[in-house]
């Protein structure tokens, strides 16, 4: 269908620091025992999109990701990995691979998006309206766990300042205004001429930009070339396109005009005008039309482009992994309500449970894990090859692979990375334990981030 898919897998993220290390770049961070990139690629494969470009920041990370992809998706996908320098921003990443983009439209997906919205829906909306950019919007996820003692750390992350302010037209198809988290602290500016053209704008703060965009390739390359200072897709490029939708610069349409004129050489311009007038009169009028007509109505030099929005239904699941809180939430959801995202069983093939050990619902145990007696696991995800002692209580946590947990430990609301050793009677509440760390026995930690110092 003339679409090219680019997955922006990033590499580093300051929000997720103790969890991410040199060996575990962000795209490979496990959610329910699978790297988060798996969900995106799996969904693309389901939709029959086999040729992808995955952009990773940093050479090492690219190697890790490439290795994992070729192991997991042996013959299903044909993936091209592109490594870009770090801290270049999403726009910079696209600039780096711009010469690889050849199709008419580009679908850009963020690698940390876990959702079940079909990418075909965004693409279909994009094509239907012949838009320059189409963004997927989803409802803001409910964050925070249900049975936690809320500590100060959690309250901070639930501030609405993180999300977007979105302006839509009355039929909810066009994007009129988009403001991202950092701008909301200060004032937000609306474009008066857009409001004037549409007449009525609906402003919503319960929708979030899900970072799945469909771009028209010519428009995207134009903007990337012209605006060198733009670093981020979400914060710079998309708001710029939305702001300038009725007054886009002539150059933006210079390419599309040339393409159009090249095709219709046979009919005279007069006939062409008549045909386009018939077609334009027949379609539902959008507010772009008055701006695109010259005063005498004869030549239609279009100086507008359309920014569409696809609003995912409230029953679909859509969360981005960009904070520790989100990481915990996604882990919980994927094993709990959104378990249709997983394609196989919840309990691995060979967990060894001791006597009187209870594993609650919505839990996941990786293969090769062993639990001692009288353990309690509630709403947690435990990775592969873990050795868990007796009398251990794990609630609402994520434990990654190859972890050794001594007897009598209590782990609550925490993330324990791979190769960690927790000795006996350790109590962890809302902590983050980085990879390879050793927690000595009898310690109690609350709300801390423990990481081994990088040598």
């Amino acid at each position: 269908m003339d679409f090219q898919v680019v997955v922006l897998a990033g590499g580093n993220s300051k929000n997720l620091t103790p969890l991410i290390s040199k060996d575990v770049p962000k795209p490979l961070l496990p959610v329910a025992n699978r790297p988060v990139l798996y969900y995106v690629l799996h969904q693309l494969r389901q939709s029959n999109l086999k040729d992808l470009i995955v952009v990773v920041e940093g050479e090492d990370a690219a190697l890790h990701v490439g290795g994992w992809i070729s192991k997991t998706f042996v013959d299903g996908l044909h993936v091209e990995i592109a490594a870009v320098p770090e801290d270049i921003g999403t726009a910079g990443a696209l600039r780096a691979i711009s010469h690889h983009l050849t199709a008419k439209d580009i679908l850009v997906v963020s690698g940390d998006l876990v959702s079940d919205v079909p990418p075909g829906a965004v693409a279909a909306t994009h094509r239907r309206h012949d838009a320059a950019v189409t963004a997927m919007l989803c409802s803001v996820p409910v964050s925070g766990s249900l049975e936690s003692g809320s500590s100060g750390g959690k309250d901070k992350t639930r501030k609405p300042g993180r999300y977007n302010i979105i302006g839509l037209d009355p039929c909810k198809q066009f994007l009129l205004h988009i403001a991202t988290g950092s701008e909301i602290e200060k004032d937000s500016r609306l474009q008066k001429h857009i409001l004037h053209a549409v007449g009525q704008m609906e402003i919503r703060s319960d929708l979030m930009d899900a970072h799945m965009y469909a771009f028209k390739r010519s428009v995207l390359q134009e903007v990337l070339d012209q605006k060198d200072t733009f670093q981020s897709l979400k914060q710079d490029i998309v708001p710029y396109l939305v702001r300038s939708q009725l007054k886009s610069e002539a150059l933006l349409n210079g390419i599309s005009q040339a393409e159009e004129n090249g095709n219709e050489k046979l009919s005279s311009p007069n006939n062409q005008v008549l045909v386009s007038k018939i077609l334009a009169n027949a379609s539902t009028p959008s507010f772009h039309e008055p701006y695109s007509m010259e005063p005498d109505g004869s030549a239609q030099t279009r100086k507008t482009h359309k920014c569409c929005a696809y609003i995912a239904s409230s029953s679909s699941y859509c969360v981005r992994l960009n904070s520790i809180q989100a990481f915990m939430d996604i882990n919980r959801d994927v094993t709990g309500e959104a378990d249709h995202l997983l394609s196989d069983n919840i309990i691995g093939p060979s967990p060894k449970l001791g006597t009187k050990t209870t594993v609650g619902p919505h839990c996941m145990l990786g293969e090769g894990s062993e639990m001692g007696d009288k353990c309690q696991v509630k709403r947690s995800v435990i990775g592969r090859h873990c050795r868990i002692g007796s009398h251990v209580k794990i609630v609402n946590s994520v434990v990654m692979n190859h972890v050794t947990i001594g007897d009598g430990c209590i782990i609550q609301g925490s993330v324990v990375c791979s190769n960690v050793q927790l000795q006996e009677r350790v109590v962890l509440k809302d902590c983050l334990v980085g990879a390879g760390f050793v927690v000595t026995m009898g310690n109690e930690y609350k709300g801390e981030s423990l990481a081994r110092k990088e040598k």
Partner: protein
Amino acid sequence: MKQPPQKKDGPPVASSVAASERGVDRPVEKERKKDLPPPRMQFDDESRVDKAKRRSLLNQPEARNRVELFRHLPPHKNGSQLPYLESKFFELHEMHPSVYKVGLQYLTGDTSGGNARCIAMLQAFQEAIRDYSTPPEKTLNRDLTSKIGGFVSFLIECRPLSMSMGNAIRFLKSRIARLPLTLSESEAKAALCSDIDRFINEKIVLADKVILRHAATKIRDGDVLLTYGSSCVVEMILLYAHEIGKQFRVVVVDSRPMLEGQKQLRRLVAKGLSCTYTQLNAISYVMHEVTRVFLGASSIFSNGTVYSRVGTASVAMVAHAFHVPVLVCCEAYKFHERVQLDSICFNELGDPDAVSKVPGREDVNYLDNLTDKQKENLQLLNLKYDATPSDYISVIVTDYGMIPPTSVPVIVREYRKEYLLI
């Protein structure tokens, strides 16, 4: 075995049943049947509906509470199809992107109006032909014809074809069949694309210009013209007459649930015409001051019956009662050799829920309070087209001139072969 409707429709099924009973006339009937396109599908026949369901690309909606009299018509494809089609976006390999886009626009109602739908479809086919390449060991004629057939079935599932589209598809298929075998692939494709361009230019664009000129001669200064709904030809006539300086008033009559007249009203007012806007219920109050009625048509049948937007028949009838001349403006490519006596045997069903809703007023929904038991007794019907008998029509303005309704079969007979051969 019955083929799914790929072009426009043949004689009603009843006549073929009658033919098989009369043994004497059988050889003659068989020959005639070969020339005619296959009969359309009747949706009250369970087995055929099931077969078509299995073959279709879209999810067919469940048979809801349908009016008994119109059960033979395909049920309306309401908005619930859209998510299904969207999720399959990348999986429909055989579909060309522009054909898919056109289908989506039909489904959502973004494109409506006979001429526009026909032009959009032909332009999409042009692009598909340009991107087409013959697979090895297949001839261009056969393979391209079957591909176009596939596109057409997809478009039918999005929204049933109009007569004009059916004629255009028949034209295209005959052009493909007549391609000389000596042509190379690129030459054949270029020839087909230029044929499509010529069809659009001659049959639609130039035809409209000729109609403009003819019809404008029938408008005098001081006239009050009435138009119904939104027809692109009538709008062009009014604007043209205004441009050449005639002084007249326009009455735009509109009807629920589509309210198409509002868009036309906006465009006319923007150009400076003085307009009156009213709805269909007020037609008899307005008619006494009207001097001429201009109507558009989706198609005109061989007995002079005009097949047009629902409500046109009422307008023509009231005009006839008030002795107001009715001019129907229609391009010749929309003529059809079928004969239809009523609006029931062939029609299109629209969205039944649209009848019970008021646009802009979400709080007005009396039907929501009904229990399910009560809803069983309530059947909603939303018809899109109706048939106006030829007695109510004074003259038909076409690109072949201004003809009385009885001359339609003459044009179909004499000029149909000509345009098929071009």
